[in-house]
């Protein structure tokens, strides 16, 4: 293109580097704090050079938690992982099935079902907090993995995405499988799913992060510390009352809460960008 040299280019790089530095600064400070002792953190201004207590703080967090909130973070990580995986896989599975039904079958109430799914777009948890909580509590699903995941599994976005994609698959493919004697489920399993692979990967990244980062929902339906996800666990560690917050352990936990989703985004960057752009269409 044009004007790829000169002062302007240096300015452009400078803007980007400043941007990255600003974006990274809070994470860097968190990392440094997670490698210091409590008294080093409290000694304002806190040093910006990593200390030597990294492993100690992380193992305290992972295996015993803070003194006030004596819940090991390892368990929280497990809960978050279960929640993120079940939500991502569950949403993808039930959306694949319903998109398949809506696109490839003609049946009464097809459009009613389609609109019912569409409406869920307009009903985020935040607008129906209390009644949803009541349903879950009536069903005896409080403090359970089912309660954490099942109510979040319906997905209009994923259903639309798969519907859109299925509609681009040529009719000839369906006809060919029919001539070869394959029934609908065979077609679904051996043709549609393999063709949807990239879409599934892209959605998985987005949904994994969505599930991992849930806050309001687990806050509502878990009261048992053993069911805490890591994001909720951090909040509980901060509620230390009159005691001094154990910052190094809290910051180590924050790092542990960020590593899995950030890893997924960076490792699957191509699918992540595709998923983000596709799911907003």
């Amino acid at each position, binding site marked *: 293109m044009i004007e790829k040299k000169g002062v302007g280019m240096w300015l452009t790089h400078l803007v980007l580097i400043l941007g990255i530095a600003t974006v990274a600064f809070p994470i860097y400070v*968190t990392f440094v704090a997670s490698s210091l002792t409590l008294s080093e953190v409290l000694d304002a201004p806190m040093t910006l050079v990593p200390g030597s207590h990294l492993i100690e703080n992380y193992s305290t967090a992972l295996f015993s938690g803070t003194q006030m909130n004596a819940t090991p973070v390892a368990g929280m990580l497990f809960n978050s992982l279960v929640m993120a995986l079940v939500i991502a896989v569950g949403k993808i599975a039930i959306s694949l099935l319903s998109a398949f039904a809506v696109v490839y079958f003609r049946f009464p109430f097809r459009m009613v079902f389609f609109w019912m799914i569409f409406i869920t777009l307009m009903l985020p948890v935040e607008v129906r907090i209390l009644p949803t909580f009541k349903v879950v509590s009536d069903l005896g699903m409080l403090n359970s993995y089912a309660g954490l995941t099942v109510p979040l599994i319906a997905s209009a976005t994923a259903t639309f995405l798969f519907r859109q994609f299925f509609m681009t698959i040529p009719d000839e493919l369906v006809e060919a499988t029919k001539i070869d004697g394959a029934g609908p489920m065979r077609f679904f399993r051996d043709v549609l799913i393999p063709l949807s692979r990239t879409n599934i990967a892209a959605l998985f990244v987005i949904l994994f992060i969505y599930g991992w980062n849930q806050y309001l929902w687990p806050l509502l339906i878990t009261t048992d510390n053993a069911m805490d996800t890591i994001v909720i666990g951090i909040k509980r560690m901060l509620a230390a009352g009159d005691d001094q917050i154990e910052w190094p352990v809290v910051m180590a936990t924050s790092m542990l809460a960020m590593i899995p989703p950030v890893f997924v985004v960076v490792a699957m960057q191509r699918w992540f960008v595709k998923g983000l752009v596709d799911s907003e269409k």
Partner: protein
Amino acid sequence: MRVRVGYSNKLLPYILVAPQIVVTVIFFLWPASQALYQSVQRQDPFGLRTRFVGLENFQTIFEDPGYLHSLQVTAVFSLSVAALALGLALLLAVSADRVIRGATAYKTLLIWPYAVAPAVAGVLWMFLFNPTIGSVAFALKAMGHDWNHLLDGGQAMVLVVLAATWKQISYNFIFFLAGLQAIPKSLIEAAAIDGAGRNRRFWTIILPLLSPTAFFLLVVNIVYAFFDTFGIIHSVTSGGPARATEILVYKVYYDAFEALDLGGSAAQSVILMVIVITLTVVQFRWIERRVHY
């Protein structure tokens, strides 16, 4: 919707949609209808009887200075977040679009805050700005600005806006960059040949072509600031000090679970529903077809 070459099976399609529909009815439609129903009911103080009160709950809400204040807080909060996040992301995206060397590295380093949970983002910024130990608070103090967001409502607002913006920039950046890369280079080159400088080209060619993306992002950012920032507010300020950061979603939660005002909370939920529906309709009707990726 077009039905294509398909299958004619009586039972199978119902079995296929069943899981999605069951979850939708039990956890979405039924609770939403309950919220609608409760919004016109009032419970006596002992929770023994409920009676129909029509639109009284809504009237009470709109006469409640606390609610009006929360509306105002929400407006300030979401407009600030949207403006800051859009502006900064656009600046970074335009820069990233210009560079060739290191473009991928810049991109990777800018997108990952998307993966950080809002509540965790809140905790990171709260730590930086902690009045006694935070690095930034210390630097501000050294420059003569006394920082204590636990006491000063305005400062608390700045803090949650910063945390919410920080997390949203990467999302906007990805969309702006995709939008910029979709602009034909020939257009820009033609303008350059005609003698338009860098700024002129940006304002008269790039920005107008980018405006559908920007408008789409504006709606998404407002939805984000309204609904997805609950974690930030709850973990950083709990709506305080003195309700200075009590956004609508936080107030619904607070009134339902802390103040136990069922009718009032349900009526607030209904108002939020109307807001989401409006924003969704705007997004689908006026934006969707005009966005260029």
